[in-house]
């Protein structure tokens, strides 16, 4: 039998000034199952809480209603209080007499008092049907999975590992480093990108607590916070990295060529390759598509018709340690993790939709990332910027900004944030490479918010003599070895025409290939542009709505290196906070199933946003659902979808809500 105690708070004059408290107490006393009712000046004060504890003991209360402020304010406070008096903390209900009555009906004493009595009655009806709930404790696997080895993922993995936890870092390409490794210098300080990045890459490669899986991808993730299990596909490299010494003889002698992904196609690589000289790991992979021996095997499999291709196998013959392994197969690795960080970065916009810029049609129209590779001392031209068409150094260079940014007509309404700054950087660098270079930048607006950023753009204009033209380019065409760029100077209100040697497109930033598939297996959200979505844009910037899954870097939206690093560290702090716990308390206000009533229609499974509903087969062969309490967040969608009424929500059960409805419509 429920023994309910009702406590009405004056909140000074906040409630008592409007609501007739003695009348509310008197009415409360008449309610069924209420064995005690009292009022307090401030129930949340030390005195009030003591009085609450004493009343629980004195009157042997097993349910408590507090009529005070919003439960959003003090529900936790009072849960702790009743718990300290030996009562289950979920046998408490609050009636919101302040925000929902006295404060909004200040001039209507009678109406506010009647409402307060109603709210107390509803709370009593609800708490009478409350069940004690217990937060289940679960263990935590003290290992983190970081997906994506760009600067954000690198920073994150290092911070977690240096805090003492194990990390598995999964990178899709043969080396970590991400886009930052492709850059020449970095704004606004003009640090050499490789010089500041490679030490971190090496640290990752040698860290005793980081296990690096390159040329690998996360295929599936199961489980929930503290207890994830991931299937990671290690693609076959055909090189045994345990034997390989990274001496380099194989890639120096390999006769097969392919466009280098790392050089954005402006350079070539061999079929057995490391993407760039400072790659980590510094051991190669064999690209099956371009390997001659693999082509030979393919030819054999297809029936050995036509001309016999060379069997090659030069790498195998030259390798001093016998590391080439043609039998190697793709391998699935399954590991357990307590937390996951997604740092999968970005790719650049495909500019071919802008026919007027001539990208793809004219060899001397390149992208800014290609220019980075041309400017880099370790790039395909060893830092000599030359025109792809004839190898001549360009003297007049036109940059076009916002290619796939701030343009609704191509589905990219957002600003890519880094382009204004890297255009200034590239124009300064071109001038440093060759003082005869004259750069022009067509822009919409110059966005240079950031420490020393505005000054940096000023430097491009004043020191490098870069000419900024506000307006769009309408067409580009070749004429007498030059590229004629037609545009509009919208400030001067007149057309401009520039005969350029090189045209550089500032292609915008969009999420990496495969971001959606990854988001789906992790049950995290992505926006219309496929950028991953944070739990709160201001207050929870590196968390997701799935507990235990965090975000860092440009996978979430355009940002520069300092921001990506800050986010990597922020996500690491969140991960460490989680992994430092031995157990986690699961929220007990979750769904529960009555297996007797469940008909196995699985409608609940379809509506559950958290994939928290599993099935099980009973001994009699019936299939019923089971709640994964680690994943359930207690939204109650399944409960209202359940036709046979088998599903219920703890803390907001059907019986409780109906009792409230009844109490309020009486």
């Amino acid at each position, binding site marked *: 039998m429920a023994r309910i105690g009702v406590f009405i708070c004056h909140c000074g004059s906040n409630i008592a000034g409007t609501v007739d408290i003695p009348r509310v107490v008197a009415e409360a006393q008449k309610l069924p199952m209420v064995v005690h009712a009292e009022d307090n000046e401030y129930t949340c004060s030390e005195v009030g809480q003591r009085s609450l504890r004493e009343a629980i003991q004195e009157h042997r209360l097993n349910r408590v209603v507090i009529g005070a402020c*919003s*439960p*959003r304010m003090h529900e936790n406070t009072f849960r702790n209080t009743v718990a300290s008096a030996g009562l289950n903390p979920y046998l408490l209900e609050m009636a*919101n007499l*302040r*925000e*929902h*009555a006295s*404060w*909004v*009906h*200040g*001039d*209507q004493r009678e*109406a*506010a008092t*009647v*409402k307060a009595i*109603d*709210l107390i009655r*509803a709370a009593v009806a609800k708490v009478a049907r409350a069940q004690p709930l217990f937060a289940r404790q679960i263990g935590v696997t003290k290992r983190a999975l970081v997906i994506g080895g760009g600067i954000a993922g690198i920073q994150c993995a290092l911070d977690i590992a240096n805090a003492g936890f194990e990390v598995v870092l999964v990178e899709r390409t043969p080396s970590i480093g991400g886009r930052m490794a492709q850059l020449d210098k970095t704004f606004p300080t003009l640090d050499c990108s490789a010089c500041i990045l490679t030490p971190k890459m090496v640290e990752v490669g040698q860290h005793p607590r980081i296990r690096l899986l390159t040329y690998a991808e996360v295929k599936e993730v199961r489980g929930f916070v503290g207890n994830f299990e991931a299937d990671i596909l290690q693609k076959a490299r055909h090189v045994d990295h345990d034997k390989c010494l990274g001496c380099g003889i194989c890639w120096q002698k390999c006769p097969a060529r392919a466009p280098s992904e790392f050089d954005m196609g402006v350079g070539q690589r061999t079929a057995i390759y490391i993407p760039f000289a400072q790659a980590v790991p510094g051991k190669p992979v064999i690209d099956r598509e371009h390997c001659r021996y693999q082509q030979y095997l393919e030819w054999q499999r297809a029936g050995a018709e036509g001309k016999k291709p060379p069997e090659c196998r030069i790498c195998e013959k030259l390798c001093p340690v016998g590391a080439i392994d043609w039998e190697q197969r793709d391998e699935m690795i399954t590991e357990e993790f307590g937390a996951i960080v997604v740092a999968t970065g970005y790719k650049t916009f495909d500019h071919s939709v802008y026919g007027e810029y001539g990208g793809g049609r004219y060899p001397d129209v390149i992208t800014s990332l290609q220019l980075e590779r041309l400017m880099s001392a370790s790039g395909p031209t060893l830092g000599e910027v030359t025109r792809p068409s004839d190898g001549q150094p360009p003297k007049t260079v036109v940059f076009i900004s916002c290619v796939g940014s701030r343009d609704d007509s191509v589905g990219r309404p957002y600003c890519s944030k880094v382009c204004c700054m890297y255009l200034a950087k590239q124009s300064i660098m071109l001038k440093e490479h060759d003082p005869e270079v004259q750069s022009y930048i067509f822009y919409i607006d110059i966005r240079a918010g950031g420490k020393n950023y505005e000054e940096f753009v000023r430097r491009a204009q004043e020191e490098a003599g870069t000419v900024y033209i506000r307006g769009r380019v309408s067409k580009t065409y070749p004429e007498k070895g030059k590229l004629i760029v037609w545009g509009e100077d919208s400030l001067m209100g007149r057309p401009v025409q520039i005969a350029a040697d090189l045209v550089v497109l500032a292609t915008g930033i969009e999420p990496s290939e495969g971001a959606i598939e990854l988001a789906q297996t992790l049950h995290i*959200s992505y926006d219309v542009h496929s950028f991953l979505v944070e739990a709160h844009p201001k207050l929870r910037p590196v968390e997701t*709505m799935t507990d235990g899954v965090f975000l860092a870097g440009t996978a979430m939206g355009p940002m520069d290196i300092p921001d990506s690093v800050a986010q990597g560290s922020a996500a690491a702090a969140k991960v460490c906070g989680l992994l430092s716990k031995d157990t986690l308390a699961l929220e007990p*206000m979750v769904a529960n199933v009555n297996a007797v009533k469940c008909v196995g229609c699985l409608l609940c499974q379809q*509506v559950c*946003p*958290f994939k928290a509903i599993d099935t099980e087969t009973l001994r009699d062969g019936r299939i019923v659902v089971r709640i994964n309490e680690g994943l359930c*967040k*207690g*939204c*109650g*969608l399944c*409960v*209202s*979808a359940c036709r046979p009424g088998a599903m219920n*929500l703890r803390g*907001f059960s*059907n019986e409780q*809500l*109906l009792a*409230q*409805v*009844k109490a*309020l*419509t*009486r």
Partner: protein
Amino acid sequence: MSYQPRIIGFLCNWCSYAGADMAGTSRMSYPPNIRIIRVPCTGRLDPLFVAKAFQEGADGVLVAGCHPGDCHYAEGNYHARRRYALLHLLLEFLGIEPERIRLEWVSASEGKRFTQLVTDFTEQVARLGPCQAVGGQS
């Protein structure tokens, strides 16, 4: 207003309940007829609760949740919106005027909007008079 309608409000915990709190914190004022029931999400709302409210003598039901895209559980309010469309038909079938129920989005910062909404809705329900449907007790 001599006739005082009874209105039940089902508010999601994360946005609209907080929006109603905001109206209080900002000392705004609205008609005292509404009685608020806190639910975790508008997606928790079983159409049965609404039907039950009318059967038990409510004259109007207000359902409020997070704006589309803002639901704390990502998609609860989309389900609520779809169910609401069906609920309308059901209520008409039961002989309850569709004007007696409303689904609205109120964020945690929209205390002003909540105030306005409750004021409008209370007036609207008052004009309709007591709900005669279902049990027909009233």
